């Protein structure tokens, strides 16, 4: 059988690692994660495709790398409900609600109603002090608050992804990834009447 030639975009898993390392030392780097939010939407809305998930998603590649190459995945088939529509859309709604809450917290800090919280919240529950990654007053408080909130979201989704990677197949996270669900929905709406050509 032929062996595939690796292209530059096959190494984007390194970007995922760099992102979390940067955020560990400087929380403001969490803003770079917006790339992973905006680019898939641009692909879906403008290009009507899921090329980001298919080719450029560093996180998906990271799960594949750790799961396959480092044999950290049991490679079991995940329960069918994980890829079911109600779970995917339910998780998307939950995720967007949590994202909205994070934006609201940022707003409260910007409005001066509450102070900056230098913590990273894991799994939307556990507060982990993260003060070393930010020098107070370096930027406006709301910018820093968004960074902590966004990094929490990114780290939480990676932890969930790693957990299901270990239990099931490496890219099980992709079956209910909120961005994947959202972009697939956009593609379904945009491409409803397109002809299929192989």
């Amino acid at each position: 059988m032929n062996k595939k030639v690796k292209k530059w975009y096959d190494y984007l898993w390194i970007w995922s690692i760099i992102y979390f390392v940067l955020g560990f030392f400087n929380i403001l780097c969490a803003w770079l994660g917006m790339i992973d939010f905006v680019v898939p939407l641009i692909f879906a809305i403008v290009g009507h495709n899921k090329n980001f998930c298919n080719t450029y998603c560093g996180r998906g590649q990271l799960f594949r790398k750790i799961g396959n190459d480092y044999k950290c995945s049991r490679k079991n088939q995940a329960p069918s409900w994980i890829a079911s529509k109600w779970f995917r859309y339910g998780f998307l709604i939950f995720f967007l609600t949590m994202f909205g809450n994070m934006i609201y917290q940022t707003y409260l800090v910007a409005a001066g109603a509450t102070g900056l919280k230098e913590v990273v919240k894991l799994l939307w529950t556990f507060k982990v002090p993260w003060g070393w990654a930010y020098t107070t007053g370096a930027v406006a408080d709301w910018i820093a608050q968004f960074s902590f909130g966004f990094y929490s979201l990114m780290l939480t989704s990676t932890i969930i992804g790693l957990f299901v990677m270990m239990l099931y197949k490496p890219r099980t996270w992709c079956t209910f990834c909120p961005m994947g669900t959202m972009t697939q929905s956009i593609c379904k709406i945009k491409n409803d009447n397109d002809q299929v050509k192989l």
Partner: protein
Amino acid sequence: MAKRYAEVNKNRCVACGECMYVCLKGAIKIIHGRYALSNSDKCIGCGLCEKSCPAGCITMMHREQVSE
């Protein structure tokens, strides 16, 4: 021609593209970001896509089953 070929359940497919990535023959494509589609003429029936599919929506079919 191979005895088996991959068939994708479009309704369950999440279009993650893992099958397309592992396919050594380029027999699978993601159609408009909606679902994966396997070209049975190109498929060599190796089953790599079935093994890698996280949504479990790929089944290896026997060629005989096509004519049935």
